[in-house]
């Protein structure tokens, strides 16, 4: 059970308080109707799935309830950092 630093609570909390919410920084297009099928597919389904440095979202669902972003190494599972939703990509 990994420990995750919640940037809102500002402390490390056990994984079972959190829900992973997939890859981070995939913003919903402002004009979905204007998207090509390919663009829309990319938004919905294409994922980086990197072996290494990975930007992902978590929700402290059984805590403060906030969604936030994290950078984690998918080979070591170690977090590089976590930061609040809306803050620029790190």
């Amino acid at each position, binding site marked *: *059970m*990994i*420990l995750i630093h919640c940037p809102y609570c500002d402390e490390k909390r*056990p994984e079972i308080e959190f*829900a992973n*919410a997939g890859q981070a920084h995939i*913003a*919903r297009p402002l*004009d*979905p*109707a204007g*998207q090509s*099928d390919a663009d*829309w597919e990319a938004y*919905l389904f294409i994922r980086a799935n990197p072996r290494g440095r990975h930007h992902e*979202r978590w*929700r402290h*669902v059984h805590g403060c*309830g*906030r*969604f936030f972003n994290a950078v984690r190494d998918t080979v*070591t*599972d170690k977090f590089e950092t976590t930061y609040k*939703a*809306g803050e620029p990509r790190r």
Partner: protein
Amino acid sequence: MSGFRLETGGRIDRSQPVTFSFDGKAYQGFAGDTLASALLANGVMLFGRSFKYHRPRGLVAAGSEEPNALISVHRGPGRFTPNLRATGVEIHNGLKAFSQNRWPSLAMDFGAINDRLGMFFPAGFYNKTFMWPRSFWDRVYEPAIRKMAGLGDAPTAEDPDVYASTYAHCDLLIIGAGPAGIDAALGAMDSNKRIVLIDEQDELGGGALADPALWPWLERSVKALTEATNVTILTRTTAFGFYHDNFIGAVQRLTDHLPNVTDTPREKLWRIRAGEVVLAQGAIERPLVFDGNDTPGVMLSSAARVFANRYGVAVGKALTLMASHDSGWHDVFALAKAGVGISAIIDVRKSVDSALLHAAERLGIKVYLNHGVVGVNGRHNVSSVEICDYSDQRVHRINCDALLMAGGWTPSVHLWSHSKGSLKWRDDLGAYVPDVPNENVRCIGGCFGDWDFGTGAVIDVLPTPKDQSRIKAFVDYQNDVTAKDIKLAVREGFRSIEHIKRYTTNGMATDQGKTSNLNGLQIASSALNKPVPDIGLTSFRPPYTPQTFGALAGHAKGALFQPTRTTNIDSWAQAHGAVFELVAQWRRARYFPKAGEDMHAAVNRECVAVRSSVGIFDASTLGKIEVVGPDAAEFLNRMYTNPWKALEPGRCRYGLLLKEDGFITDDGVSARLAPDRFHLTTTTGGAARVLNMMEDYLQTEWPDLDVWLTSTTEQYAVIALQGPNARKVLEPLVEGIDLSAEAFPHMAIREGTICGIETRLFRVSFTGELGFEINVPTAYGRFIWERLMAQGAQYDITAYGTEAMHVLRAEKGFIIVGQDTDGTVTPFDAGLDWAVGKKKPDFVGKRSMARPDIVAPGRKQLVGLLTDDPNVVLEEGAQIVAYPNQPIPMTMIGHVTSSYWSETLGRSIAMALVAGGHDMMGDTLYIPMPGKTHTAKVSGTVFYDLEGARLHV
């Protein structure tokens, strides 16, 4: 008879005799004995039979690394445990232990025929045969193989014991309470750290327990640690796995060593988060590989020392040592000191430290350097050994009743490796030792390769003049893997150590290769002619030693396995004979049978009651979300397919929710209580998912919106009152709300009180009848329900369950998300176009509905089905075809999603998803079932009160 109890010595309590049995024969030992030491003391050397060849086997070790002495323990009904290590079983009065994998008896085992035929069963033999005749595999070969395989018998009755679990936190976790671990604890004791000290044995001390000179120190240390308030000591506790971020799993054995079964938990799972972890697990002595090294009486020299010094048991009267490492010499000297007879010391090395030679001389022990054992005589017990003088290859015999092996040491880096710490190879030790940590953890003492009992030579197989292909020199005792099996694997092209392991099963037995992995590596390395580091190392996998399912499941048993959520009205349903069904985590009343009624009779009666008078239904499990804030309407407008901005306060609307992929995920009726406050409802199963989805969009896509979501699912008990008489039942109980059709139309909400309790009263219907859904604070649910029952008695008010609810809604063509839709259905497929706001530029899922295959013709669409034979109720999940007489595989164009007998209509009704169904009205379709193909006509999905007049009375 060879083993015996020494006159003095050991930590056993000779004042406390203990009587136990092995294979039905009664024996006596002392408190403090393990099954292994007690049986040894009684001269028992034969403990079990090996996995494949059924060779007689004795003890190799004294600890949890023991590969051979696996036994079963019977403790009464449901308390049978197979595959326990005799070295880890503490004896108690009445203990009943049994040997395994033998028939008819341990001494006389028919399976031993495999040993005679062993030459035909090399590694991987099963890949090469049992293929002809083909039909024999299923019927003859495989059953035979399975019968031979396996060790102990399987449990056959439910385990009555309970298990416990807990989380724990500490600043310093020390695993292993040998001298190194104890020193680490003493060193940190005076800090303000919270310290946990874990050891798998019944008392602290580890190696020190076999060294009487250290006992005074041990006693002082244990006293100090026990008195320290910041130190928690867990004995009989095995740290079995090292997980992310210094999270360690450990199991504490609480009752197996006690004579009487109690109701206290048998074992406890400790889930420990530690600031720092210190691994002090020591090292495991390595056997030597030579012909006959599995004969009972051949064991690790360190084990013989443990048996003598800790348990006061000599493993024989005349012991011979076969050494490649100094440690064996020290063991033998200690044994001699303890009064055990030593016949000789044999060492493969040409020379050893002169101090050792002098010590041997002083004790009058004959020494053979540059010699090696090349044969062992005796089947159930060593009688003598053949040793070879490597200088001239001459072989001669030495009489002895036990042969000790000292092949060097293997640091226990298991947990270190679980933590993904790296290892480095040390040629001088012939072993891997910890290198770079991956967590806040360090290794000390033996598991770091740091010990003080001298040096040794690293060898794979003892040289022998015999034909290597004809001898049985075992590497993995339990799995019967010999040196030549490993060479065969290499010969057949298996070069990775992982391949060799899997092909030979070396290291895959219940001891996980604790005594065999390194010897296997050495042999593979010489066979491949590559240094050990080049052929890799098999990964260490948790658990360190096998752990019970029960302990890992912890409290989660029966009622505690998973919560069963119940409503405030559930107790009433229980008291009134409801039959329940499980929906998501909830328990819901399915129907309320009266005496003699089956489900169908009950459901028919309940349905008729609703249509003809009034029915009452517990709808509390519906998900509810309160949406509050200036942007509430805007938010819902973006989430749902429907438009929300124009909805007036006091009105309700059916809401349809899609996932971004355009498929229906949830629905429900929602009400606008005020310009900035909505009361949403969701499906029972969807409540948590929908709230999470809405929070996701709100927090990450539209953080600018001033709106907040709160789950109110459990704030309100919800009672659906449905039927032409619903208003009459309700009217006398409600205050502050005009229930007249004019003042309170269908799809409206009012707030007031009922029986003095505040209520949010919905006028909605999932049955097609005049209906109300009464929301009251949960604690009052049952009270209001009973008041309504009383008030409704004059109208013969009838409680109905989920089954009747399904029939009633189906008669009206209302869908159930998850039954009539299945995650691949769009609003158009479901015939819910009307619920999609055409003018809205965007909402969740809108764009996906424009994708090529979503707009393509021929999609499966929801339609009604009326069987030509009105008495036939189609099976839900039945498949539909356009042409009945096709060969298999048939082209299926859809399936039945809902199907019921409608007592109201006096016929069966069904809904189905059918390809292009909306354009098939009136067409005949076919439903091929075993034995009969049913026919049905496509219809609309509304079967009752098409114009909906009954809703608006």
